[in-house]
């Protein structure tokens, strides 16, 4: 695909999506070699979703470069998911069971799903926790979060503890992989 002039979100419909899909599929298939056709199709669709999101919010100058990078990152995410799965789902040395319950289906990095559910839970309740979670999920440590929010560190941590408690209560009656991933299975 040729490089495109700057594209805005409004021009989303001008992108030849079928061509983009073929390009992404080709990138993933030849450079990263997924283990089977189903994985390739899933990753292609995932990369296409990411492309959609980027195109909608940013101007794109080099379409080929963008798709190449998205294909690469999609592959990295896939590898990361598998690595995290191995770390958490394999049988631990001293235990017969997996360390945690497996997530419901392979629908993305479980950590990302945990973050999404947490953010959405707090947003839906309009709790002040949502603002804290957003800043923390940007990759900040708690001290930075406290500075960004202009509040004492101890106050932020105390409030966040209450937020976590609220989330646990919300999950309490719903034993699922999310509850297990909060880390209280053996307690």
């Amino acid at each position, binding site marked *: 695909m040729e490089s495109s002039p700057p594209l805005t979100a409004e021009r989303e419909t001008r992108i030849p*999506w079928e061509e983009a899909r073929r390009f992404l599929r080709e990138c993933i298939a030849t450079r990263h070699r997924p283990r089977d056709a189903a994985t390739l199709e*899933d990753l292609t669709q*995932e990369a*296409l*979703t990411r492309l*959609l*999101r980027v195109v*909608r919010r940013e101007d794109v100058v080099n379409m080929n470069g963008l798709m190449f990078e998205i294909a690469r*990152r*999609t592959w*990295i*995410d896939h590898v*990361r998911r598998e*690595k*995290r799965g191995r*770390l*958490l789902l394999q049988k*631990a*040395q*001293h235990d017969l069971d997996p*360390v*945690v319950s497996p997530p*419901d*289906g*392979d*629908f*993305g*990095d479980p950590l*990302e*799903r*945990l*973050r*999404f*559910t*947490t*953010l*959405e*839970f707090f947003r*839906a*309740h309009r709790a002040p926790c949502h603002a804290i979670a*957003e800043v923390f*999920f940007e*990759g900040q440590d*708690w001290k930075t979060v406290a500075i960004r929010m202009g509040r004492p560190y101890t106050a932020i941590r105390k409030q*966040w503890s209450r937020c*976590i408690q*609220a*989330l646990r*209560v*919300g999950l309490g*009656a*719903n034993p*699922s992989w*999310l509850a*297990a*991933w*909060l*880390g209280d*299975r*053996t307690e």
Partner: protein
Amino acid sequence: MAADEHIRFRQRLAAYAAGLLDEGKEEAFLEHRARCEDCRRAFDDFMASDEAAPTERGTHIPAAMLARWSAARRSVRGLERAMVREHLKRCSDCRADLERLGETPEIEFVAALEMQPAPGWRERLFGSPPSSGAARVAEPVKRGRRRQAAGSPWVPWVLGGWATAATAAAVILLTVRPVPSPSPPAPPDRPVATGPTAPLTLEPVGVHARLRSAARGPDGSELRLVLSEESRYLELEVGALDLPEGDSLRAELLAGGVVVVARPLPRAAREGVRVIVGQPHRAFTPGQYRLRLIARPAPPARADTTEFGFRVVRPPPGTR
């Protein structure tokens, strides 16, 4: 070092990464990491790749879930399912992504996959009634009186509306009758099932696409009406609703965020009824409107509302 400690450390890896350990547990977690080389290696493996491929930090439905939507919508469960549904209701980007991928931007209500809350969980969580609808998604519908809440008397109960809608399918049949003369008669007491119907387009709010079928749109509690001709009133057919005894029901039509007409619906609406919504002395001009169906608990119950999801069907041939 006890084996349990290593297992617990691994169990808490994800919670730590998501910031969901409280201070005491986090301290114990970090202490163990400092002492145990194997666990430190596992920690580094778990955390490292975030820097190479940053994700969206939970602000949207994960792309991988959208990419596998047909499977995800049938198997995601519990709180995660409720939150995906809630997100889809308000995020036009995620809905557009799904439509672009050829998927339907909805997640059905499947009883076996929905949250099953413990009684009174909301009180334990908040100590008071919620300020928004999402808290109610997990709470069984209570009949009878509800507690008084502060704030706006008409707080939309969007997510609760969805949950309720799944068990109380309200069907609204819309027909638009054009103005027949400069001094038209008042709307009839009973709907007339004959006569011309103005061209009408129905769109779910927030999605710039026409409903493809009679199925409920992504936003079940509001619909956008596009009137292409001047019309005096709408005829609504409301299906059976699961309303608590004493609750009132009303329909609102909004233009540009302003309610242009609102009328209570008769008590019989809970069993299904046809009503007329309109303005006897002024016609609706062509343009876009939004239609809302709102249930309000009877006083002195709390003054928030339930917005029921509904679907729109075109009048069957021969009834126009």
